[in-house]
């Protein structure tokens, strides 16, 4: 899976959590997902969706605090975890 496919999959998962990033500007993509309306519970839901979709285990330290990353950071992190497999 290349990075574009990862981006599109994550955007789809975010949309499933009512976070609309389909037409996000670069500026919005550089904003924390929490600032885009991702609640702490939706963040946990997203973590499960990401793990299930990409069959990866997301690092505890990344997920335990509610300082959700930006979309760019999340894409890079997921892509690197996929690369480890």
């Amino acid at each position, binding site marked *: 899976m290349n990075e574009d496919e990862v981006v599109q999959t994550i955007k789809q998962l975010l949309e499933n959590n009512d976070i609309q990033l389909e037409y996000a500007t670069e500026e919005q993509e550089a904003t924390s997902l929490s600032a885009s309306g991702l609640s702490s*519970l939706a963040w*946990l*839901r997203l*973590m*499960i969706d990401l*793990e*299930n979709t990409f*069959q990866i*285990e*997301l690092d*505890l330290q990344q*997920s*335990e*605090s*509610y300082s959700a990353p930006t979309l760019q950071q999340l894409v890079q992190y997921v892509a690197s975890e996929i690369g480890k497999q």
Partner: protein
Amino acid sequence: MGRLLTMLEEAAEMEEDRLAIAEGSDRITYGQLVQEVRRLAEVIAADHPVTYGLVMDQSVPSVLLLLALLESGHDVLPLDELQTTSDLWRIERICPISRWLVPDSKANQYEAKLKEGRWLRYSDCVVGDQRAAKDSGHASGSQREAVLYQLTSGTTGESKLARLTLATVQREGKVYRDWFGYERADRVVLTAPLNHLYGLSGGLFAALCASCTLIVCRRPTPRKTIRLVRDYGATILLGVPQLYQLLSDSQLLCAADCSRMRFAICAGGPLPIDVPAKYEAKVQHRILQVYGSTETGVVAAHHPQRTYATGCSGELLPHVQAWVQEEERLAVASPSLFAGYVTADGDENPVQHGAYVTDDLATIKQGHVYLRGRRPKFINVAGRKVNPREIEEVCRHIPSIHDVNVFGQPDQLHGEIIVAHFVADAPIAMKELKSYLRLHLADYKVPHRIQQVDQLKQAWKERYASTESGDGGDSQ
């Protein structure tokens, strides 16, 4: 020595090296727990018990402080660390807080406040700060019954504090221990916050009175929860419905992670109907549901040895009586009922004739509780949303009225109209009552139909009598 230390010493005498509480890398045995609570209680002891606000970060020190404050006879309001300083300011308008204790890790957030004498870091108490100790003059173990406050939005949406005695919270701990059969060998993973009654009673107090081990999962995530369950060989898991929903959806959770688990407990809200089967198929242990509230304690629960119909929230616990009132609202009589609210306008106690009427709509069949939803928060009068609790509050200020129920009734013209039933010591003239209500309520909030009744009072008495006589409390 107070009732808490007595309980802890009994546990320590049996096995002082047994792990009592673990959180992160912190571990404390029962022997150490007794020593620390006793030492802290002596530091915090006071001639005149006061009310402490304890901002809890779910760490072991926060638990030690909570236990020591209660042991010393102080009243305590434990709060989530996510509260802002503005939140705390609003709380102080409801209930004066004599001293605040905040985690050291939050010192920056409270920097300005910490310059005041009544704001302290955890470490100020742990090392025996003079401000914390300045009132000292008696030994720990006050005979005074400490009060534990719980912050609640109540039914009106306005913040208020529910008042519970320490005896009630300890009793609730024993209720969990006895109903679910907590044993000394159990390892309980708690993902619910310790500042809420569920975490305090089902987690902390139940574990301590069973002399077993409590593992606190701070800022829980599904993965962190699974890791703790696996690493500690946990036997009991406590969580809220959302946790079980996430765990049941996780493809990476497997039975091997939970090989020693006996059961999971779920409270804090209704569990989606499809979750138990999905979860149980995956991990080979059951989710036992608990129904209760801060105001009532545990009302009904699933028993580990019995099975229940789909949608059943559990069976009524021993010593709990419940029946269905007007509008299908569930009324509860229990030794664990709270002792009223503290509000910005003063004290308020909705417990009438030994019973509390919840906003939960339910049916009871053969002692099994089936929740049907919540009483609607608003009455829709021609598009205007009216809060029935606001009207009830105004009615309660009339001295002769001691019980009132306001609800909506379908109406072709208005959509809904407002109906008020009240019980009073003496007949009240409707004209005067309506004048009073018009003075204190906007015109559209004045009930369309008002009726003085004795049915509420009568129904309660009848139900209470029937459940006391042992017919199972299964009335509807």
